[in-house]
């Protein structure tokens, strides 16, 4: 319980939005109330109508009003319901728009420009899913709950017209139905919901293990183990789910029995009070029949509240995101673009990733960084791009600390990594993202420089061809060339290449590298590479091991002096 309080107290996603969008919320629950009232009123009026008609009044005009009202409520209920569904969906989608923007801003303020090994789109699509989950929180929990409270008030007043003792009785029953049972149901369901979610994700992991590891299961002859292991989790999940559903069925049963008690007490109470009054007796059927349509609302509130714990994770995850920042520092023009790392140290989990590194890269100089995975290459790039701050030492571009240059960094440093993202828009628009002010001719020139002209000419729609999702329509080599064209337009004096050719076959790798060093010849290049292909294009090669440079020289000298370098060259088949 404390956890929930805590969750709501620091919530930045649900409560603030409810506050700014009151009117839509109000209309939605009001229309919902009207729907329920109309349904009840239909039974109320028809009950009265036939009772009164059975007394055979002399004049049809005496039952004319109930006749009209019966039809009116009959028509009003579906119309209110239709309107309510439209209003609430519209409201929820508005929430989605706002929160998507917020989610984006929040993630953007902390996203790094150098991709980490494990930071992928998966985290982000998880967050996008969380937003979708919250839609259901509104539609299935908050709207019914809001309506439930209004029904509570409305019904109490309506019953109060009969007598106040009777109203007190209804208040007690409604409190049980709308507050006590849902609260208990929420609390009793919570642990089960958590277990269910956990089992579900375990089932997903298991299914992935089964499918992706299929070859190993088959070859090792362990097919039976696979079936058994899967079955265990699935049976467990089925048990948990069934327990949850059984709980829900019995809860609904209890609600129905409470309604039964309400019906019987209402019948007898109203019956005793009205039975001697020739006009009032007609209300006996009216009040009794009007109770049944309320059941939908009761069950809706209870289901919604019981499910609420499904959304806890989502709310919690979204709330751990930082608040988007909006500060803007005016950019200064830099004349010198020398990159200097002075005694830089960086630790992660108490482990030194970068250990007292010194490095100077002069304007126009080209360097290669090599090292095993985990040696600190990516961390070094992140430090230069100011994605992370060093524990000690300084990193400057043109004597300015990079942390102060953050807002103009994209004008100074361009990045080409192994999966430069191509957006689902036309080729022209994609490349233009390097510099939005570039003219069509400039964009086309950049494309031409990267050797893509023949490809463009072969496409029926030329420059207007749509990239598919993540550029899927083009081969890996072509995608990297498009990204290179974008960097040409970006015109930043320093270019970071983060294993830009790792997924390409050797021939394409060589071609793309040649192109890169040709078109970027006037810029500073800091190149992380996993192979020695193209190593002769750089002025200096640095070998990183456990956060330190263990070897650093021109490729020409290394050929002469380093046996290790010669061995590696031989592996790449370079003489």
């Amino acid at each position, binding site marked *: 319980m404390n956890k929930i309080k805590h969750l709501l107290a620091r919530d930045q996603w649900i409560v603030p939005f409810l506050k700014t969008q009151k009117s839509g919320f109000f209309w939605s629950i009001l229309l919902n109330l009207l729907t329920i009232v109309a*349904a009840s009123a239909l039974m109320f009026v*028809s*009950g009265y109508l*036939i009772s*009164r*008609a059975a007394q055979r009044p002399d004049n*049809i005009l005496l*039952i004319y009003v109930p006749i009209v009202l*019966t*039809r009116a*409520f*009959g*028509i009003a209920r579906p*119309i209110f*319901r*239709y309107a309510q569904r*439209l209003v609430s969906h519209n409201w929820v*989608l508005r929430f989605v728009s706002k929160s998507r*923007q917020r989610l984006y801003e929040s993630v*953007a303020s902390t*996203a*790094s*420009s150098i991709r980490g090994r494990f930071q992928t789109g998966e985290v982000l699509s998880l967050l*996008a899913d969380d937003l979708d989950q919250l839609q259901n929180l509104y539609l299935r929990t908050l709207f019914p709950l809001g309506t439930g409270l209004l029904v509570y008030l409305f019904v109490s007043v309506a019953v109060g017209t009969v007598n106040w003792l009777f109203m007190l009785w209804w208040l007690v029953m409604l409190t049980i139905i709308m507050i006590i049972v849902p609260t208990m149901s929420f609390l009793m369901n919570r642990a089960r919901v958590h277990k269910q979610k956990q089992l579900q994700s375990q089932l*997903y992991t298991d299914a992935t293990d*089964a499918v992706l*590891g*299929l*070859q190993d299961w*088959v070859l*090792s002859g*362990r097919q039976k183990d*696979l079936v058994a292991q899967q079955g265990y989790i*699935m049976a467990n999940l*089925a048990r948990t789910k*069934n327990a949850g*559903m*059984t709980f829900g*069925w019995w809860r609904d049963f209890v609600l129905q029995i409470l309604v*039964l008690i309400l019906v019987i007490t209402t019948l*007898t109470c109203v019956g005793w009070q009205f*039975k001697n009054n020739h006009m009032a*007796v007609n209300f006996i059927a009216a009040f009794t029949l009007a109770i049944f349509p309320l059941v939908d609302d009761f069950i809706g509130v209870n289901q919604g509240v019981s499910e609420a714990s499904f959304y806890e994770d989502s709310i919690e995850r979204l709330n751990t995101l930082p608040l988007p920042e909006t500060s803007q520092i005016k950019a200064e023009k830099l004349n010198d673009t020398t990159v200097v790392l002075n005694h830089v140290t960086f630790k992660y989990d108490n482990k030194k990733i970068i250990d007292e590194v010194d490095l100077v890269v002069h304007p126009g100089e080209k360097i290669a960084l*090599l090292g*095993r*995975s*985990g040696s600190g290459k990516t961390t070094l790039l992140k430090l230069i791009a100011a994605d992370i701050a060093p524990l000690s030492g300084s990193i400057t571009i043109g004597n300015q600390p990079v942390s102060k240059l953050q807002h103009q*960094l*994209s004008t100074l440093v361009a990045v080409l*990594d192994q999966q430069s*993202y191509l957006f689902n828009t036309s080729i022209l628009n994609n490349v233009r993202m390097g510099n939005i002010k570039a003219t069509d001719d400039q964009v086309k020139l950049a494309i031409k420089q990267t050797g893509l002209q023949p490809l463009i000419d072969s496409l029926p729609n030329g420059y207007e061809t749509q990239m598919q999702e*993540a550029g899927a329509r083009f081969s890996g080599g072509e995608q990297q060339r498009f990204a290179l064209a974008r960097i040409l337009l*970006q015109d930043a004096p320093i270019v970071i290449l983060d294993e830009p050719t790792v997924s390409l076959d050797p021939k394409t790798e060589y071609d793309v590298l040649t192109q890169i060093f040709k078109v970027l010849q006037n810029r500073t290049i800091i190149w992380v590479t*996993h192979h020695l292909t193209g190593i002769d294009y750089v002025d200096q090669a640095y070998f990183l091991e456990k956060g330190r440079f263990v070897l650093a020289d021109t490729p020409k000298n290394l050929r002469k002096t380093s046996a290790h370098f010669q061995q590696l060259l*031989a*592996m*790449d*088949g*370079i*003489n």
Partner: protein
Amino acid sequence: MIDKRLFKLEGIISTLIVLVFMTGIQGLAILAQGIFLARAIVDFWQNKLSSETSLNIALFALAFFVRQLLVVIKNKYMAVYADKAVETYRIKLLEKYTEIGSTIIADQGTGNAVTTLGVGLDNVKNYFQLLLIKVFDLSIIPWLILMYILYTKWEQGLFLLLIFPVVIIFFVILGLAAQSKADAEFVNFKNLNNRFVDALRGLPTLKQLGLADQYSDEIYQISEDYRKTTMRTLRIAMTSTFALDFFTTLSIAVVAVFLGFDLLNGVMTLLPALTILILAPEYFLPLRNFSDDYHATLNGKNALTDVLSMIDRPTIKDQDKLTLTTWHNQAQLTLAHVDFSYSEQAVLKDINIQVTGYQKIAVVGESGSGKSTLLNIISGFLLPTGGQINVANQAIPHLAQVDWQKQFFYMPQHPYIFHDTLRENITFYAKNVTDEKIKIATQKAGLTELVNELPEGLDSIVGESGRQVSGGQAQRIALARMLLDDQRKILFFDEPTAHLDIETEYDLKQTMAPILSSHLVFFATHRLHWLDQMDYVLVMRHGKIVEQGEPQQLLADGHSQLNQLRHDLGSV
């Protein structure tokens, strides 16, 4: 309305008979509930209270209780059945997966195969559970009620009977209109949704280009367009439920008004009229329940189709044609004129090789030359479309042989690491090995450093959502698996080091070289430095073996295809 495929399930008939029986009782309870409530009300209305009034109220309460109790019992009863049915499907599905192996996944896509196994089966369960109850409610309860109403007052009964198809027709027609509207907007819809994900996935790139801040408004605009498109579709989509709602509610109102007139004219008395009024909503209730879950059942239906089509796939025949205990130093494998084509396109053409004992064979060529396909044919993951195969003097149709699969170990470019402890991962192929053996294997595979680094050593969870391992470490884990199973004398390697950084590759090569001895090795790669570990080489180009022989000999020949390949691969 009911899937015919459901009737093929084991034990479905007896289950359904029980369900029909329970639904029948429930229908009668609903009738009784209405009748006795009406009687009680009329007693009060006439101010003729007697012991019979209390009896009426008691019987009403009893009927109500029975009815609600049956709701719970029916749900529980069907849940048990649905679980059993889904468990049967799950086992069949997994058996099929393991039987057909990787081809099923290549066809369906990993994501799809995982979804069918997880969410898919879950949907199927809901389908069994929800659909059957609702279908039987709909086909029994309204008609019991209608018979009673017809018996009491046939005019009202006739009206309710006639309105039923009208409601359904409108529901269906408007449903179709909504569907076509949704189809028309589908592309638009998908586009808008994708663009949001697109922006999130491309965020690092946007950041690199300095566009991250400007893109925020664009996100809002895309989302607003998405909202407008959705609302356009919903406005139409919801009319079908509206129609159902409208006709059922209005029918109740109409019945009430007609009853009023009949009463006014003295044609009937209050009791039957009130009974009809109370029963009228119950008459429509099953229909409304059915339509509420209509879309959920559609998902279930599609999921069932996916599951069944997967289960019904043909299996591979003749997997037991080979009898082989252990591959040994004199054993022979021959492929003669073997072809393989995929959807009418020839991928491998006229492959001829003869392999003896513990040879070490490199398969080299550019990307797309057919190296991996050849490996897949030899390991039996793909079936050849032509040619002859002979293993240990036995002619066999293909290599997907149970006895063949026990002989070899396959190392792909990205070995799969299970979400489990490092120990379980290493001992995957050889359960029940001693800790001593595991220690030796981890040492030989160069995993000691990783083991020391992990907080709980061998018992740390690795793999997806555990501690992730790098590409080189994954290779080493696979090597350790290989080392623990000394029964397997054949090793396949498919580009094991192409994606690794050169220093890791260098280290790994030192580890691997000793493991290769006294094994038959097939090693597909475009990293030609591996040739120094091999004693035979197959040079592939465009799906053909263009040259084979000993590496030293071919390298010495300036005009050999192997030297041509070296030149093409960019080494000078």
